[in-house]
Structures are given as structure tokens and as C-alpha cells.
């Protein structure tokens, strides 16, 4: 998997967060992970299909989910309910949509699936036979970790 595929996802996350007033985003250490993906309580998975295919996972803890959902809804949210789940899915969808737009402008075309949300403790997702690029993005509202596994279709 080419490392340059990850950059549009980082740029998109930073830009979407900025639109919601979160201006300070600190990029953590980039890792190449093979095998199962350990999840930090909540994972939003979006499928990718086209000239490149695979999936992106956005991983965060429950408090971070609540904070981001509040930003999107423009209201205070206290419990992890259907609105929060939907808002956080949409948040992931907006990031991925923006990344598609950026990659499309570089000539790489693909479509995305609606977001699927997984919650649970000590979860591990084993899905792709290729290594994933994983990068945490730290913000004042919590950390969102992008986990991207893509392969080129020939």
C-alpha cells in the first residue's frame, strides 16, 4: 500500500475538525500494522471500492465520540445514544468524503460505503490481508486514530 494514500485522510480530518472549530491537531507516530487491529472502544468503518479498494477505520474512545458528536449537532450530548452513533458515523463520512475529493483530483477514483459503527471493549478487527497504516491525531477534544488499509485493483 502506498503511503501517499494516507495523507488525504489526515488533511481531510484536520480540515473537517477546523470547520468545527478544532484548530490544534497534533499528528502522532505513524505505524505499519499487520494482522488484527486493536480498537479503542469505538470504531467507524467505511468501505472503499474502485481503483483502490479496502477500508478506513476511525478509532476513538467514548468521550471523544461524544465531543465530536456535540460539535456536529451543535448541542450538548450526555449519553452514547442513537444520535451520537449517527453523528459520529456522519463525522467519519465527511472526512472520507473529503479524502475522496482530494484523491479524485489526483486521478484516483473510488466510491465509499455508508459508515458502520462498532462498539465494544478490547475489540480486535481482522479484515485485510495487507498491512494497515495507522496514525493517531491528538486534539483538545480527544484522539482520533486513522487506520487505513488499501490495495490497488489491477
Amino acid at each position, binding site marked *: 500500500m502506498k503511503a501517499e494514500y494516507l495523507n488525504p485522510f489526515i488533511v481531510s480530518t484536520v480540515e473537517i475538525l477546523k*470547520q468545527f472549530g478544532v484548530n490544534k491537531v497534533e499528528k502522532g507516530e505513524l505505524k505499519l500494522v499487520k494482522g488484527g487491529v486493536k480498537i479503542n472502544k469505538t470504531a467507524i468503518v467505511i468501505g472503499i471500492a474502485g481503483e483502490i479498494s479496502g477500508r478506513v477505520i476511525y478509532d476513538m474512545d467514548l468521550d471523544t465520540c461524544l465531543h465530536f458528536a456535540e460539535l456536529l449537532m451543535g448541542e450538548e450530548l450526555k449519553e452514547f445514544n442513537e*444520535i451520537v452513533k449517527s453523528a459520529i458515523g456522519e463525522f467519519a463520512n465527511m472526512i472520507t468524503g473529503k479524502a475522496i475529493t482530494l484523491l479524485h483530483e489526483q486521478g484516483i477514483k473510488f466510491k465509499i460505503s455508508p459508515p458502520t459503527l462498532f462498539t465494544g471493549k478490547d475489540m480486535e478487527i481482522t479484515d485485510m490481508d495487507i498491512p494497515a497504516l495507522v496514525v493517531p491525531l491528538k486534539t483538545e477534544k480527544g484522539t482520533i486514530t486513522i487506520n487505513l488499509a488499501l490495495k490497488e485493483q489491477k
Partner: protein
Amino acid sequence: MADEYKKYREDPEYNGFKDDGTPLKLLIVDDSLAIRKVIRRIAEGVGYEVVAEASNGKEAELMYTKFLPDIVTMDITMPDVEGDEALEMIIRNDPDARIVMLTSIGHKEAVKNAIIKGAKGYIVKPIIGDQIPKLLKTLKRAAKK
């Protein structure tokens, strides 16, 4: 909550009223419950009557036929039947349908594709800040008079 949008509600370029003062009928199509809630809050805040919500393209077509709204907001990435397909189906049955795409995907090809299929406008999410007046102006221009 209505006060938040008062200035738009009072401005005929942005509000959800027809010239005779009756509310414009809006159909909201988005698979996200959260986004439907956000759109409804803004739309009702400026005067629209939200006649129905749909969470996929198939439902959108059914709701359109049932309620004949003056204007539709249409997401693209949705389960089962996607928004661009629903756009085609609705326009085929009502060539005068007024549909504005409201989606997270903003590349030129997607915009061009939607406009060719008959969309009257294209707004990229998130619906926050400057995107709110932009959305309201686009909806008002596109709505049946």
C-alpha cells in the same frame, strides 16, 4: 431555537416561505439520523415545513410521490439505493422536481454528474458556519415558487 435563524427567516432570499407567506414543503433525504435532525432544525428555524424524511433512495422516491414537496435535500452515499440514483428516478417521474444534493463528496465529476441528472444545486457538508446561508440560499432559489 428559532431565534438562532431569525435573520434568515426574515430574509426572502434565505427563508422557507413562498411569496404568499405559506411554508415551502421540504423532504429531507439522508441516511444519518443526526444529519436529518440538523437539517430539520435549520429548515424549520427559517420557516420550511418538513413534510417527510427518508433514509435511502428508495424511501426518497416513495416520500416524494406521496408528499410532492417543493424542494428536496438529497444525500449521495446511502445504503441500498444511493442519492444520485434516487435523483434520476424522481426526475424521470417529475421533470420539474427540485432537488439539491447535500453530501460529503465534492469532486468535480460528482457535481457535474448530479447537475446533468437534473439536480438544482450541490452543497458539500459539513453544514456549519458559512455553509448554512449557502444552503438556505440554494434551497430557496431552487424551490418551486
